[in-house]
Each structure stands twice: as C-alpha cells, then as structure tokens.
C-alpha cells in the first residue's frame, strides 16, 4: 500500500507546525514516514503533551504526607487513606466527542476515566461528572443534554459503578460546545499500586480486550482543535462506540491478573490507543518496546499501520507480563471470554519499534516522543472585557420589588434547580456504599472490604473498619469569566466548603481545565490566571492536585466558552457519626448563619456575577464575590469542630442564589421516595441594612447555613466566637412555609410551592 | 445464505418507544400515522441445508432471539 507523501499540507493537517516538524526530523535524523507523522501528531497534541500548559501546571501544589503517587507520574494520582488503603482518582474531559455525538461521546468519556483508574490497580467504586450546556430553550441544547446524560447513565449503570454526584450549568457560552468532564475513583491497598511501565527486558507485551477498528481515528488530535461548523458533521465518523459490558469484563480480568503478581506493567489504550500506551510505558521504564501489528486483533479488513496505531477503539489494555508467565494471561482472559494477543516484547534499545508483516514501519526514540514535545509559553494579555466588568456598579440595578417571586424564579433557574432529572437516570446506589445520595452538598460513600481488589492469596486482606469519603465537583464559571484568578480560588473554596458541610477533611484535588484557544493572548490570560488561582486555593486547603486534564480549543463559531476549571475534591470523614447533610431535620431547631451576612467590603455586596443578576436582570457582569482563603479555612475548620461536638444537624453552603436559596434548599431538598419530599418550613430574619436583594440573593463567600438543637445554640455560638467565625442566629425550623424577613420586607411561601419550582424545573424545560 | 429476522413487540404490549417515535413524527408534521412499533432486525450469515437451517433458526427465534411473551418474529431466508 502506498502511503501519502509528507507534504506541508499533510503536516498542517496533522496539527503540527513547521518548527515542530523540523524538531521531529532532528529527533529521527530523517524525515518521518506517514505512520510516524501520525504518531508524533497525537503524542504532541495538547491532550497528550500539555505543550501549552505544562509550565503553568508546575505551579500546582502536588505533595502532602498522604500522596503516594503524584500528579503526572502515572495515569492517576493515589492518596493514602489509612489502614494500608489508598484511593486513586482523576477527572477527564470528553468535550469534543460529546459535541459531535453526545451519547457515545459521553459514554466513552466515562469508559476512559474508569480505565485510567483500574490501570492503577484500583477497583473503581464511584463516578462523578461535571456538565455544561447552552440554554435549555434551544432544542439542539436539549438534544445534547439528553444524549450526554443518557450516555453517562448507559455506561456507568451497565458497568456497575455508582454515579454519585455532579454539577450541571447552563449558559449560552457553551452552546455548540458542551463540556463533559467525567471523574472516577477507585480503591486499592498500597502494595497493589500498578505502574504503567514496560519493565524487564525481554518481557512479553500483551494486547487484551476487543479488536481494533477504525474508531475514533486521531481523537486526541481532534480534541485539540477548535470546533468548527463542519467538524460536527465531518468528524462524526471519528467518534468511538463504548461497550461497558466489555469494559466490566476487562476490568475484572485485569484485577484478577494483577493479583497473580506476574504483571510488570499495565496501561490502558485511551487517547492515541496503541501509540500512547507503547511509547509511554517504554519511556517510563527507560526501556524500549517492539510490537508486530499483524498480531494485533483487528476488526476491520486491510487496516494500515497508521490506522492500527492511531485507532481509539475502546476497552483495550496493554499489559507487560514477567517472562515465563504468559499462561496466566491466557487462563484469566479465557475465563472471561476476552480476546488477548501477545504482540511484542520489551527491549533495551529505548526505541519504540513497530513492525507490520516483519517490516519496520515505526522507529522512534520513545522518551523523546513522550518527553520532548515542544513547550510553549504563550502570550498573555488581560482581556478587554474585564475593564467593563470592574467598572460595573449596582447603581443602575433596581432593588427587587417582589422577592417572593424572585426566590421561586431562582429556584427554578436551571443552573440552581434540582438536578433530579439527571441523577435519577444514574444508578447512584449500586455497590451498597452510598450514604449520602445526590442532592446534598457533597456525596458520601462508604468504602468496605469488598471494594478492595483481590490480593495474591485470594482474599481482600486484613479486615478494616469501613471508611467514609466525601466527594464534590464544583466550578462557577461565571465567576471565573469575570475574574479568572479570584473565580478559580472561589471554585476551590466552594469544593472545600461542600466537603466541610458533609463533615469531611479535604485529601486532594483533581482538576479539569476547560478553556478556549491558547493562541489568543486574552484567552491564554484566562488560563494562566486561573491556574494560579487554583494553585493558591488547593494550597490553602491542603488539597494538593493529584492530576487532571486539560481541554483547550473549547469554542464554537460564536465565541469562546466561559473559562471552566472544574474542581473535583475528595475528603475523608473519620467517624460516620460526623456525616452531615444539608436539609433541616426537626421542628424547633435553630437556624444559624456561620460567616458574615454580607461582605460589606465588596462594593457589589456579593451580587457581582450572581445568579440573581444573570437570571432576573439579564446581567452577566460585575466583579465576583471576594475570596479570602484564611477566612474560608477558619470557617471550614470551625464547622468540622462543631460537627465533632455533635451539634450540627444540617449544614449547607451558600452559593448560587445566596442565603435565601440556601435556606430554601435546606427546607425542600430531602427526598425520601418517589414523589415524596420531606418538606419542613422555617421562619428567619436576615439582619442588615444593605439592599434587600443583596441580603437575600447576594453570593458573598465563606457562609454556611447550619441548624442546631435549641439546647446547643449557646455552645455553637460560643464555639464560633472563640474560633473567630461570625455567627448570626437567623430563626427557627418548622411549619409548612418558609418565611424570610429582611430590610423591612417579609416574604412567605409554602414549602410545597418552592419544592415544585425547584424540583420540576428541568423536567418542565425538557418537555 | 443470509437469514433476516425481524422481531417486533406484540401489539398488546406497551411500546413506549414506538409511541415516542410516533409523537415525534407527528410533531414534525407527518400526518395520518396509525401506529409506530419499534423492533429489532437481525442478520445472520449461515451455511447448510436450507430446510435444516430454517428449522434451526426458527427454534433459535423462539428460544433466544425473541421472547414469545412480548414479541413476534418474522424469519426470511435469502
């Protein structure tokens, strides 16, 4: 078969610049052939090489006494949770594939991140996701939303992993370029950590999983380009199809094989499939690798070397086994009726050599391919729009006349409304570990013995007390758009606050940087300042970044997306007694706000970038609320202290919609069963002489609504005082309506009315 | 030869998928739709004596490829 000639057009089509091509020629000492060009193209895409972001990412805190595998070392980071146990977790985007084919794009995003976790030797035990769409008034947006949610549900449910929590925002900037970020977490013992390294010269290299087809050709490179109008049409053929059933079997077989102790290295074939897994395992081990493509199981006839190396067929793994133990692979993969093939061996040459029918078709120094991608320091310039944002004042914004209607409108605003339309499609309970279901500030998961992968002796090791972890994923991208640095700190602070509200101490963070084109200095500014803000936030909460994902070029013909650095944070709860939920529990309990009613030093009183301004005044501007990290840290630690005292019956973080929405949610968000909420009213007074809308709907940070038994009020207030946390007694839980008095006005609404607005808003928008 | 098998829900059985498709078509302006039923189509490439193959496949349809409680099947050998 004749291969295309390497022309400047072909080079450009592969997303490589003339300089990058020259660098490839220097590395090889010759011109690359077509297959090699394809390999460099994917490995040097942003998705695989982080060439635009690596220098920035170095600013992230990545160490703590609990980090066992740090960011960038392997496919996912690993954190110690005590008793010899550890968790592995990571978030990854599948934005562009989901824009092209929402169901399969989202499904394979879930499949990919699950593989990243069991590749580490961990058993995946829960999933989260973070989604962004345009506004639901658009039929096209509804189609994408429906497709993405059912794709996630399909893959996760069938695989048997609970999808525990997530977030969904709707904003015009995501129209045509939805964001689909999928997170997975797994459990393992310290000694079970598997490495993606091709160790041991002469060791055989196995391919396991379904045969290779022409699916998702060059998806990694595809993810690193702007979405154009024709791409949605033209690249439909590039989207992979996921098979969760296959993945479940591959996972069980891989964990079983890892337990035998014969695995020298293992890596999933994700982006850039066979290419990435072979060169990265060799580079990590400092070895070489040689494979023969005729031995690779193939689904389609007459596949070229280029196609086989770049295919992104799903659910495939590369496994390097200690020589002499080949039979173990055969035995286990045959048991699970899975295809497997020995396709090559580890060498000492440092080269990645690919043969097809014996003839060498690729010969590249592995380490240079993985580690010597060009690095770019892009130009950065403050975006012009930020001056207008900073100049915004409340002078032209009339104070609300009808706060009761505003509250209902905010509760029904899709970004605030209950996401039950989404999560009722996810099996969030499988594996018998879900202690706090979707719908509270953070999900809480029990880790029990059966979560641990099997050890060589056939057991899951010494018994341990159940562990409890809390998980959340957060990012108010409007804040980030209006102030990339402060907004990113706010995203981290909100995640940490959500964990605190559930009773947890943060352990670590994984982030998904969803940004637009880095070649545009104004857009690169967003990325740069955002990373700096995230880094500062993670440092403050001692929640180091264990890894994550960068997705650039998120824009559509009408403009870039809002910069969206999604923050997923995991925390641990020492004692199940400390697990706390957001809803009010009992009549007569006292409602207290921890934190200042309004940040008086903020000229916009917390209304900058607020849901209130966006939904009711159609204004997406103003400097977002200020984020003072020491204040947040003090608040979270104080709350955990009160929880440990046994005083806190509910804790709910104030975020979008402010205090009024937070209190309303505490009244209406407990769902006991189908069509059966447990509603409980409250009567509160919000003190302060600021404008009414700021008191009710301002989004000043570092605030948590708690409820306590009347007998614990004095203790709680005294505790807050001594911890330096402002605390205000707002009122009492009880009755069938929520009554709020503020600035001389009273609003009172039946809780069932509020519940209906909040609970059914998205379902109504989807009808 | 090639066996073409169509499996459709029995008329008495609730077919929400068919109903959803019908609603969508009606919303798009298609008129006169009396009913939509969504089923499955299978293609099986098979070798052997025609009568034996037919008998085998009919058995397979009854046992595995369709569920007689809720589905009908139609087999064509080409």
């Amino acid at each position: 078969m004749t291969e295309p000639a390497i022309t400047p057009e072909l080079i450009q089509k592969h997303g490589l610049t003339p300089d990058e091509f020259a660098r490839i020629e220097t590395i090889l000492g010759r011109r690359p052939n077509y297959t090699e060009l394809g390999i460099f193209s994917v490995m040097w895409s942003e998705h695989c090489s982080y060439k635009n972001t690596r220098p920035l990412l170095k600013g992230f805190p990545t160490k703590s006494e609990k980090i066992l595998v740090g960011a960038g070392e392997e496919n996912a980071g690993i954190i110690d949770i005590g008793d010899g146990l550890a968790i592995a977790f990571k978030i990854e985007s599948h934005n562009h594939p989901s824009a092209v084919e929402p169901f399969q794009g989202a499904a394979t995003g879930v499949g990919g991140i699950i593989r990243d976790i069991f590749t580490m030797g961990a058993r995946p035990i829960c999933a989260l996701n973070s989604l962004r769409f345009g506004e639901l008034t658009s039929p096209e947006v509804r189609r994408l939303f429906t497709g993405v949610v059912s794709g996630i549900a399909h893959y996760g449910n069938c695989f048997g992993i609970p999808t525990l929590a997530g977030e969904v925002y709707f904003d015009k900037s995501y129209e045509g370029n939805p964001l689909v970020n999928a997170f997975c977490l797994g459990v393992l013992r310290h000694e079970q950590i598997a490495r993606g390294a091709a160790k041991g010269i002469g060791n055989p290299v196995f391919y396991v999983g379904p045969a290779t087809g022409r699916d998702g050709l060059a998806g990694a490179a595809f993810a690193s380009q702007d979405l154009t109008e024709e791409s949605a049409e033209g690249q439909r053929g590039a989207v992979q199809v996921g098979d969760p059933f296959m993945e479940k079997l591959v996972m069980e077989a891989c964990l079983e094989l890892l337990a035998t102790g014969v695995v020298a290295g293992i890596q999933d074939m994700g982006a850039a499939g066979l290419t990435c897994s072979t060169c990265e395992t060799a580079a990590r081990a400092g070895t070489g690798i040689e494979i023969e493509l005729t031995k690779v199981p193939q689904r389609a006839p007459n596949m070229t070397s280029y196609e086989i190396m770049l295919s992104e067929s799903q659910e495939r793994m590369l496994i390097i086994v200690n020589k002499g133990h080949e039979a173990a692979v055969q035995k286990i993969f045959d048991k699970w009726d899975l295809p497997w093939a020995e396709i090559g061996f580890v060498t000492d040459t440092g080269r990645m050599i690919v043969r097809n029918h014996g003839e060498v078709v690729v010969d590249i120094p592995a380490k240079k391919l993985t580690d010597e991608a060009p690095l770019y320091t892009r130009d950065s310039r403050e975006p012009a729009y930020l001056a207008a944002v900073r100049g915004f004042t409340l002078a032209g914004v009339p104070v609300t006349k009808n706060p009761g209607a505003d509250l209902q409108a905010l509760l029904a605003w899709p970004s605030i409304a209950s996401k039950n339309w989404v999560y009722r499609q996810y099996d969030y309970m499988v594996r018998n570990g879900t202690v706090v279901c979707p719908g509270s500030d953070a999900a809480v998961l029990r880790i029990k013995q059966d979560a641990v992968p099997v050890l060589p002796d056939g057991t899951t090791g010494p018994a341990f007390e159940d562990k409890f972890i809390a998980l959340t994923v957060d990012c108010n991208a409007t804040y980030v758009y209006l102030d990339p640095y402060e907004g990113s700190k706010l995203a981290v602070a909100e995640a940490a606050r959500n964990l605190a509200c559930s009773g947890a101490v943060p352990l670590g963070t994984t982030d998904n940087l969803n940004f637009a084109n880095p070649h545009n200095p104004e857009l690169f500014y967003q990325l740069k300042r955002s990373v700096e803000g995230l880094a500062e936030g993670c440092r403050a909460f001692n929640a180091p970044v264990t890894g994550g994902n960068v997705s650039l070029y998120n824009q559509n013909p009408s403009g870039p997306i809002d910069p969206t650095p999604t923050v997923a944070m995991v925390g641990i709860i020492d004692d199940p007694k400390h697990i706390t939920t957001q809803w009010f529990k009992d009549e007569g309990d006292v409602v207290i706000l921890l934190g200042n009613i309004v940040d008086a030093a903020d000229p916009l009183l917390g209304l900058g970038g607020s849901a209130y301004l966006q939904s009711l005044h159609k204004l997406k501007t103003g400097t977002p609320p200020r984020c003072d990290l020491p204040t947040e840290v003090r608040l979270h630690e104080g709350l955990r202290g009160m929880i440990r005292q046994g005083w806190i019956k509910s804790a709910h973080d104030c975020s979008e919609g402010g205090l009024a929405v937070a209190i309303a949610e505490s009244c209406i968000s407990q769902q006991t069963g189908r069509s059966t909420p447990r509603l409980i009213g409250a009567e509160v007074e919000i003190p302060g002489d600021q404008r009414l809308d700021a008191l009710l709907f301002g989004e000043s940070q570092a605030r948590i609504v708690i409820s306590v038994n009347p007998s614990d009020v004095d203790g709680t207030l005294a505790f807050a005082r001594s911890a330096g946390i402002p605390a205000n007694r707002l009122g009492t839980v009880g009755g069938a309506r929520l009554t709020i008095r503020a600035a001389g006005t009273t609003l009172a609404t039946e809780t069932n009315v509020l519940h209906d607005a909040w609970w059914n808003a998205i379902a109504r928008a989807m009808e | 030869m090639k066996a073409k098998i169509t499996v459709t829900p029995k008329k008495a059985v609730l077919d929400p998928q068919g109903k959803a498709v019908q609603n969508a078509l009606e919303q798009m302006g298609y008129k006169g739709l009396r009913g939509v039923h969504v089923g499955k189509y299978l293609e099986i490439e098979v070798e052997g004596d025609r009568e034996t193959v037919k008998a085998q496949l009919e058995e397979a349809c009854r046992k595995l490829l369709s569920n007689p409680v809720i589905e009908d099947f139609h087999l064509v050998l080409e």
Partner: protein
Amino acid sequence: MNFAVLQFPASNCDQDAIHVLKNVLGHSARLVWHKDQSLGAVDGVIVPGGFSYGDYLRTGAIARFSPIMQAVQQFAANGGLVLGICNGFQILCEAGLLPGALIRNRSLQFRCENVFLKPGSSHTPFTRSIPEGALLRIPIAHGEGCFYADDATLDQIEREDRVLFRYVDAQGNRSEESNPNGSVRNIAGICNTARNVGGMMPHPERASEPILGMADGRWIFESILAELAERQKSRAA
C-alpha cells in the same frame, strides 16, 4: 444458612447480596460462576441484579442459557428457594421460572429512586415476616422494569395470591403516579405457582442497613431465613 449468589458476566449487585447475607445477617454466602454446572450444597439461591451480558438482545435473555441455570432449574424443581432481584427477576422470567416479562420503562429512561411497596401476599417465603400492614421503602434502579403479562396470566397470578409487591405511594395507595415504570397492575414482584421462586425489581439488598438510610429490605431476607429455618425444623422432626 448457605446461599449461592450467581455471578454472570456483568452481574453488578452480586457483592451487594453477599454483603447483606454475610455481613449484615451473619449467614454464609458465596459467588457461583455462571459457567459452573452445580450450585453445591445450598439452602437458597439469589440471582442478583446487574446487566448480565450487557443487556444485549433482551435483558436476561442470554444469561438464562448459562450452564448454571440448568442447576437452578433443578434446584427450583425440587422446591429450593430462588429469589431474582432486578436483572435476576428478568433472567428468571426469560428462563420461564416466572411468568411474564420485563420491558422498557414507560418513561424510556433508566430510573434510580426509592419507591414504596405494599406486600401483595403474606403467604410467600419472601414476604412472610413482613409486619401486617407495613409499607416498605426500597430503591429501584432499572431501565427495563415494566412488568408485563397478558390478562389471563395476571388474573391467575392474582387469584393464586402470588403478587409479592405492588408499587404504591407513601400512603399506601396504588396509583399511576406511584408506578415508576408502567408495570401492569403496579406489580413490582411475583412468585411462581409453587411459591418457591420469587422475583422483584426493587433492590432489598440496598435497603438493609440503617447507615444507607433504609432497612426495610431486610424483611425480605428475614422472610427467606424464617422459611428456611422452618423447613429445616420440619425436616429434622
């Protein structure tokens, strides 16, 4: 007691059933691989939930041909207790051990939520220990849980008092609104004529511990255990 929990490729709730039987109720339970020919010496069989064979073709359609299902048929024919949960219910229907079939939810969407169940009969090994008049709160998690059978079959099931559970609202009333999937006559679970094989879409194993917020599912396992204890006693006598 000794329980066998079947494990098909992509059984997802197998460990959950084991966890409840062993760690919560203190009995012995082990996984039995679908390619095995024998159940071993067991007192009861659980066919757990999941997506056996990826739900390809039809839910449960492929799993019923697994070698272990021969042994289950035999075990059931000899009067052994078999409970199918969710995908297990689907498999038992496909295998002909229970009448009817489970089809796509009326909403066309997967549904995961807690539902309220009213026991239909107290005279079954799966419901006998449930207190008189109790409503159970137990989760469902399925995309194809709409129970269907023709009217003659349904009449027979009702005449023979074989409905294990019906979907009801929090007050115990049967209504369209309380029916999460469109099941005929709100049926959530049934047993066979001999009353030793039961199937239900809701997941009692997910509602058997206070830490998970629900413990009503325990009544179903307690019923099975009471039945087995009585059988043991009458055998010994």
